[in-house]
């Protein structure tokens, strides 16, 4: 979930290894300046190393991320609501900078936000609401909802803003590619441990087959935070990973 970075406004990290895919996607869309500038078109790999050298941001392990959260809650007396709001807003801002409405085919651009059963899902709900305010047309899939006032309130806010909630997830990647221009993965966050239960296992499999860009909140769902690789589910390629 949200950590010190949301507060420090350190900005975002693009999952560099997938930049080429972003290039492929947006070349089909209306052109427009993107926030990282024209270098991106030339060589994803070269740009990647320049960015990585200049930003010099520390990556947190799962324990460190959890420790940051604990400090924010216990010492700084932040509430989950506050941090979740900041996290979701920051993510929506990041996504809107990476995939501005003017660069998308549809007007308003359609976005599918998939929310998991925990705080990462809550971040997704906040993110969807702000994306709506920024001029996107989000749809949410939120199959497992915790029975807590924080989450029911976030759902109400989205419903009242006419953000539809899907009853079921399309099982064919092609269907999602047709309907949505961007998918936001808000399924699991950094505190995820253990096995992936249904329906999320199937959802993650579907996401692997997508051609539209995927923006993952905090970490690509299912990716082990401890490992350099992509965790027990094998690589599932997020194009954009705003790390909170």
């Amino acid at each position: 979930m949200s950590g010190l970075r949301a507060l420090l406004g350190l900005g975002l990290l693009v999952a560099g290894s997938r930049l080429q895919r972003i290039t492929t996607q947006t070349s089909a869309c209306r052109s427009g300046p993107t926030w990282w500038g024209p270098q991106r078109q030339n060589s994803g790999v070269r740009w990647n190393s320049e960015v990585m050298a200049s930003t010099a941001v520390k990556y947190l392990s799962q324990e460190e991320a959890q420790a940051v959260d604990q400090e924010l809650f216990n010492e700084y007396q932040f509430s989950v609501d506050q941090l979740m709001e900041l996290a979701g807003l920051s993510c929506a801002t990041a996504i809107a900078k990476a995939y501005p409405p003017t660069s998308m085919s549809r007007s308003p651009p359609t976005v599918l936000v998939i929310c998991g059963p925990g705080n990462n899902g809550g971040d997704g709900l906040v993110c969807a609401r702000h994306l709506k305010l920024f001029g996107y047309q989000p749809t949410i899939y939120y199959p497992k909802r915790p029975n807590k006032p924080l989450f029911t309130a976030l759902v109400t806010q989205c419903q009242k803003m006419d953000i539809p909630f899907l009853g079921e997830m399309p099982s064919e990647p092609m269907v999602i590619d047709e309907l949505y221009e961007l998918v936001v993965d808000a399924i699991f966050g950094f505190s995820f441990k253990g096995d992936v239960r249904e329906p999320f296992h199937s959802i993650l499999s579907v996401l692997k087959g997508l051609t539209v860009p995927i923006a993952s909140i905090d970490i690509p769902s299912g990716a082990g935070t401890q490992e350099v690789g992509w965790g027990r589910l094998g690589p599932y390629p997020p194009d954009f990973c705003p790390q909170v």
Partner: protein
Amino acid sequence: MSSAAGPDPSEAPEERRFLSTAEAAALERELLEDYRFGRQQLVELCGHASAVAVTKAFPLPALSRKQRTVLVVCGPEQNGAVGLVCARHLRVFEYEPTIFYPTRSLDLLHRDLTTQCEKMDIPFLSYLPTEVQLINEAYGLVVDAVLGPGVEPREVGGPCTRALATLKLLSIPLVSLDIPSGWDAETGSDSEDGLRPDVLVSLAAPKRCAGRFSGRHHFVAGRFVPDDVLRKFALRLPGYTGTDCVAAL
């Protein structure tokens, strides 16, 4: 102060740009009760957006070290809570805020927001000099988060009232959150005699008294009002661009 009898007949329904005090309260109630927003969410969004507004009016690269120091004066009610959040985000944005929060609310929201500021090493003044020249010399700008619409000046206690008296004589820039503290939220009376901010940051939507504002910049900040609510209150706000949470009026 009783609110106005109804919408100003000279304003066409589609073009209302201001909210009366009663309408502002009704809009907030709708967000809290129907939309189930939490007060903490809205205060956080307003405070964050207020800080962003300050950075737009006084961009950091153009400021000297001294000019980055910001005195944030917070009252005991919601306007003060927004001020506390604003101070914290100013700190994150690398300004150097100091807070004067003499009359502290006991409610949990205020206490937690205070803790967050304290833990981020934002100093809290124990008293505010009555000699305005000392404030002019110590700070680059002042944020007035003392009184919001519908709060009577006499409700906030001596230290806040004295602070406002001092701020009236300020020569460094003054930014007021939502309404200039001490102005009547409806009529803007006392706008001659009261605070004369350089920047007004209207929260969510401008209040009636903003019509009397004659300072340098007027922003609306806090981008969270759903379209349906805007329509219901027949509000026409300037367009926010991109992901901005602040729009200039």
